[in-house]
């Protein structure tokens, strides 16, 4: 009963999803034709300019648009999984130290093994992210029950401590600039050959979707989920690994996008409740759409220069976060 409380038949839901997908595709095609290089559908069709236009499309615009959609959708998924597992609406990779730990791992690799391939760097960063998140979950056990706001607060400060340690090391070795690149999701660096690792996040979304029901049940709490026959510990570990891998992949390829995993799931679940199997596709869709929109805005505001999508979203996301905190006090505490 509860899962279908809006009473919408499946056909309706599928229709809505299809409409959302169309809107996303429209946004994506806008993203394909916005930028410095002169790329319009007309130039693609004109035989004289086709070749140059095709290069720009395949080497830069298509990879960029794909990276935007991949990062946006998988961060939203990572956010909602963390929210289910910690049973707290304000937890996501940047409010739990996950992103910062991944950044520290990246810095360590850059300092000690600068020549190692990107995959290895990403994996090490994922290991750091996993350790950081596990430590955060350990800290959570010490939080007195019934104080939901302490969880993100602890997470943000925990991330802050890791972040200032990372920044200090980077400052010491003159690497502040590379640090800035991880802190602000920047998609202008994405060209063919430099972002393909992000496709792995799509592969990670599949187990996330398959395990969606488990995460929903884990969200009911440890005792309740055990009662319902769920191996709570294993679900936690699976979720932790998925989230850490996603965060590390996004941080190492394009940089972090703060609050995306918080804003999207909260807004979506406001509209459609907490059944993850049903809402997960919507979250992926909205995450991709929001990041696309922010990136397009960032390309237009100071054209021909760019503002990173992560920076645009940082402002937008903290405003929505404040709204969630203050706008509806009954829900916040």
């Amino acid at each position, binding site marked *: 009963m509860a899962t279908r409380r809006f009473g919408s038949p499946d056909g309706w839901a599928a229709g809505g999803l299809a409409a959302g997908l169309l809107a996303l595709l429209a946004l994506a095609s806008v993203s394909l034709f916005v930028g410095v290089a002169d790329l319009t559908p007309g130039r693609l069709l004109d035989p004289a300019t086709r070749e140059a236009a095709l290069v720009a499309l395949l080497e830069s615009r298509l990879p960029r648009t794909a990276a935007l959609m991949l990062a946006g959708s998988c961060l939203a998924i990572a956010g909602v999984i963390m929210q289910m597992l910690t049973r707290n609406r*304000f937890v996501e990779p940047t409010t739990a130290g996950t992103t910062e730990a991944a950044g520290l791992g990246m810095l360590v690799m850059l300092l000690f093994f600068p020549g190692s391939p990107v995959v290895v760097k990403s994996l090490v960063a994922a290991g750091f992210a996993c350790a950081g998140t596990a430590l955060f979950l350990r*800290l959570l056990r*010490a*939080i*007195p029950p019934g*104080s939901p*706001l*302490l969880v*993100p*607060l*602890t997470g*943000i*400060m*925990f991330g*802050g*401590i890791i*972040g*200032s*340690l990372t*920044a*200090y090391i980077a*400052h*010491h070795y003159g690497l502040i600039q590379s640090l800035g690149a991880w802190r*602000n999701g920047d998609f202008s660096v994405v060209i063919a050959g430099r972002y393909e690792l992000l496709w792995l996040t799509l592969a990670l979304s599949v187990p996330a979707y398959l395990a969606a029901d488990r995460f929903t049940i884990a969200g009911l709490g440890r005792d309740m989920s055990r009662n319902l026959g769920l191996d709570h510990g294993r679900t936690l570990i699976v979720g932790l690994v998925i989230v850490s891998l996603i965060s590390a992949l996004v941080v190492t390829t394009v940089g972090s996008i*703060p609050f995306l995993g918080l804003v999207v799931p909260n807004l979506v679940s406001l509209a459609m409740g907490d059944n993850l199997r049903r809402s997960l596709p919507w979250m992926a869709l909205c995450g991709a759409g929001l990041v696309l929109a922010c990136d397009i805005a960032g390309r237009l*505001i*100071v054209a021909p*220069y760019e*503002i*990173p999508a992560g*920076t*645009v979203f*940082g*402002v937008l*996301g*903290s*405003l929505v*976060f*404040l709204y969630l*905190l*203050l706008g509806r*006090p009954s829900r*916040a*505490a």
Partner: protein
Amino acid sequence: MPHDRALPAAPSGRGLKDSLRRPAVVLSLLALAVLVVAVAFMTVGVKGNWEFALAFRGRKLLAICVVASAIAISTVIFQTIAGNRILTPSIMGFDALYALLQTCFVFFLGSARLASVDTRLLFVVETAAMLAFSLVLYRWLFLGARRGLQVLLLVGVVFGLLFRGTMVLLQRIIDPNEFVVLQDRLFASFNGVAPDLLGIATLVIVAVSVVLWRLRGRLDVLLLGRDQAINLGIDYRRTVSLILILVSLQVCVATALVGPLNGFEPVSFFGLLVANVAYLLVPGFRHAHVLAGAALIGILLLAGGQLVLEQLLGFGSAVGIVTEFIGGILFIVMLLRGMAR
């Protein structure tokens, strides 16, 4: 009061332990330590021209004293008004606000025009702008609709993140050359303090501290909580507004003088660390004692830290990172022990 049982373990018998319960003894010990550190700070490792070294280090030490005591005093008083030991001006987004305002100045005026403006005028404008912003924010937070402490904390932190995000956004739009100018201004530096600014800042902070000192009786009453204070005849709204103005002024001047203490993150935990060490060491809860103790501890940490880490151990500018690290851990421990409820 929790700090009554948390007295430091004395190495010898009852005599020392008992005397450590007397504020006068603790305060004089702290003052003595500050004196020793100050003398060492001025003299250790001086080579060559003594006259220059003493003048240079004297300015640096004065800047440290002014900034450390301003932050210590303002944090303790802020916590009295907030009614807890975990909120600080910095956690409520103050440092991030400063960085954002600096960025706005460079963004809207340009570094060239900024350099041609009289530094004293700029200092006054900076302080005034920060004061106006912080007053709007704090009055709204403290005197508006009553909210839980956890909401306040989180709102403050998210405001800090918002300020920082907006700052980064503006920094992306400005010219890269301007960005270099800006970055220098966003890290606390005690070396490059302009002598005339140091004079003004010292005057303002001493004056404000005197006024706050005269309010110490009312602060003791405010410590009892809002309702009790009103019952005891305090005009709560007016007193809190006045104190918030004074506290903001102090933090503004200190920050405008040297920059945010933690340039890496939107939050600095130095104030939190100093205030809580003061609650731990200084017996009783009278503001007369706690404020003096906090100021001394602040100076001790900042000047002593610089002395040990930079002069003796040769660790560049590591003081900030060490105090922030310890302060950050203290913050998390306080959160987990339920002090934010």
